[in-house]
């Protein structure tokens, strides 16, 4: 009988655990939350709130090694935690790819973290769903407002309201990283400004058994972010992009954009790139450059951080230079452009508004991680820019590599918009997949444009 009783008790215990486990999710706060309530605010801050505050981001400790934006982000968060001992900052830190999936899933479930990083392309949809807090007044009231670079807010704006404070560093998404020594051997003092010249150099590199340019597009987004955003701008000019974003009548099927697609298809079929560009990702492609298998590589600022950290101390480090994507023939709308911007913004879940004390804490955190403390840290340690302007960065203390990249990013070239910071993930998913097929000649540029336009009409 005792044994039976024990059996029944065990079953009951398991059932209870199961249901309690399920129930806990819905009531949100774990018991530990209230632990610190009522304790004195010992921080130098005047924040009234004490308790948990959630933040989700992708600056992992691995990523922060050599990546200025991540390092700065983590540093400022750590300082804020120290200054606010009454607030228990609950951080969920994921690698970038996982972060994108997780945050989209949480948004789908209407359960966004209290503070998180918002990607420009989600702004409109999530604002319409009432998931994110309108931060227009918060930004206007910011103590750092006068220092903000206003243009950076554009991807996070919808219907005249702003939904986030642009975060991390303004980094290029399309840069040609090249070995100036080997290009000199090929007869070029710098990376060519036209694709015709790049094609002329191809023979030389073929002879050396090298790929002329390394590129990786197995993730499908790379061709969009690191190539088409810049090349498209050369053909269409920025007005077309703005018109597309603001539904001003521009279409993917407009001839200049189709021309950009045609050019992209042609150049990827010219043999300039590593033959496996569609089967490897950017991380593998940059290894071709690092190992000397390719004379140049096209990628984004995140690739440059990795290349810098890996090559430091080698000969290739000293001869590595940067260039904008060369001008395609027939593209006359803009020159020397590269897509650059702050791809993420610190946003606050609309649910936080129910608790004014917590909201004040979240706002304070958002101000700090995008404020002058961050900008000065990344400027003085990495020669990078953030949301607030930093005057008179002393470049002389940095090595040539860092100086060159600073000049490439902020001085020598013209910025253009990053396509996938806007519009909708649904459109880019369709376009990116078709682009991959197009590079294999499986679909025509005209059909790619038509499919993208259809997705745009249906989803935006």
């Amino acid at each position, binding site marked *: 009988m005792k044994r039976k009783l024990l059996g029944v008790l065990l079953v009951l215990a398991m059932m209870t655990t199961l249901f309690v486990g399920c129930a806990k999710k819905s009531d949100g706060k774990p018991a530990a939350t209230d632990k610190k309530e009522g304790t004195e605010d010992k921080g130098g801050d005047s924040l009234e709130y004490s308790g948990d505050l959630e933040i989700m981001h992708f600056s992992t400790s691995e990523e922060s090694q050599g990546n200025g934006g991540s390092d700065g982000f983590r540093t400022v968060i750590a300082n804020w935690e120290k200054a606010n001992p009454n607030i228990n900052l609950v951080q969920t830190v994921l690698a970038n790819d996982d972060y994108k999936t997780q945050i989209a899933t949480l948004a789908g479930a209407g359960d966004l973290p209290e503070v998180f990083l918002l990607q420009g392309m989600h702004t409109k*949809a999530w604002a319409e769903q009432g998931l994110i807090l309108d931060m227009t007044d918060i930004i206007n009231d910011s103590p750092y407002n006068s220092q903000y670079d206003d243009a950076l807010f554009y991807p996070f704006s919808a219907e005249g309201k702003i939904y986030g404070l642009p975060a991390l560093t303004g980094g290029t998404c399309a840069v040609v990283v090249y070995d100036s020594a080997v290009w000199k051997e090929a007869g070029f003092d710098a990376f060519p400004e036209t694709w015709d010249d790049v094609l002329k150099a191809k023979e030389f590199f073929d002879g050396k058994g090298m790929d002329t340019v390394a590129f990786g597009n*197995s993730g499908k987004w790379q061709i969009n972010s690191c190539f088409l955003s810049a090349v498209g701008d050369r053909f269409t000019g920025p007005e077309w992009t703005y018109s597309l974003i603001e539904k001003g009548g521009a279409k993917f099927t407009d001839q200049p954009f189709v021309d950009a697609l045609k050019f992209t298809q042609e150049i990827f079929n010219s043999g300039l790139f590593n033959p496996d560009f569609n089967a490897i990702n950017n991380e593998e492609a940059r290894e071709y450059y690092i190992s000397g298998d390719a004379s140049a590589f096209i990628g984004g600022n995140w690739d440059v951080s990795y290349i810098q950290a890996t090559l430091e101390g080698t000969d290739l480090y000293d001869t590595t230079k940067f260039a904008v994507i060369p001008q395609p023939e027939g593209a006359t709308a803009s020159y020397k452009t590269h897509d650059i911007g702050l791809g993420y913004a610190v946003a606050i879940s609309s649910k936080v508004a129910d608790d004014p004390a917590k909201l004040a804490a979240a706002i304070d955190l958002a101000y700090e991680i995008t404020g002058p403390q961050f900008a000065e840290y990344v400027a003085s340690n990495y020669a990078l820019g953030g949301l607030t302007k930093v005057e008179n960065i002393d470049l002389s203390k940095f090595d040539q590599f860092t100086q060159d990249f600073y000049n490439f990013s902020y001085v020598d070239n013209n910025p253009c918009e990053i396509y996938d910071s806007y519009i909708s993930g*649904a459109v880019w998913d369709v376009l990116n997949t078709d682009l991959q097929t197009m590079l294999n000649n499986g679909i025509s540029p005209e059909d790619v444009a038509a499919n993208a336009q259809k997705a745009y009409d249906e989803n935006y």
Partner: protein
Amino acid sequence: MLQSIRPKNRVIFAYLVIPVVLYVFSVFVPLMTAGYFSFFEWKGGPNKTFIGLENYVALMKDTIFWRSFSHNIYLVIACIIGQVGIAFVFVMMLSSNLVKLKGIHRTFGFFPSTVAAVSIGFIWTMVYDYKRGILNWVLKLIGKEDIIKVWLNESALVMLLVSIPLIWQFIGYYMVILLSATSSIDKEIIESSQIDGANGFQRAVHIVLPLIKNTLLVCITLCIAGNMKVFDHIYVMTSGGPGYDSMVMALYGYTVSFGQQNMGYGSAISLGIFVISLTVIGGGQLLVTLLSKERGEKA
């Protein structure tokens, strides 16, 4: 069961409650909610618009979904032949007196099915790698440089290439199931067939195959079910690419739901996969039963 040792009904019920509750929460409830969401235009978040059957109408016309379905069917056929077929051949070889160290063969044969699908995907991505992959290395070594390819970027070959790791991984799994079935065959039957002069092939087809028919049916059902929901290998190796050339239904549902944030349509796709999978599994079983009945009648 003897009444004296049979537990009381309420004890049986109490033990059953746990798995049933778990099943209901992890399978039934998500299925029902997906069914509910599939009637809405829902891009995630609290706002949804009821659109009736529109998502299902779109699903019927969605060429990418049906292409993905054809890829699943390709995998089902490839894996029934590759996994169950090769496993059966291996079992027959293992039951031969000529094979030594049978235990080692069994263990090593089963080993790949214990490895995570994601790891298998990564291993085979390296095998197929253009510059550093072993496949191209071997081709170079034997002087066949002209057929070197960027394997996973070959539209016409990619489905075959992604099915090879799947087949390789699960041969051992079906081998173990079939081995246990063949071991229950009375040795005298095999011996008398040997005395009658039946060779290995005849023994396999006319003696073993009919006697393990039911186990084979289970294997085929498992194989169909496994390949209708295949996801991880392909996600790791090609993400459904190049383009949609290796897209399968589950990966497409995932891409629509999370890549495109179209949860309503994603739910309709999930329901579609559920119904189609049930039909294919049921159809497969019916086909095997009919075929084996016919054989029985003819005999």
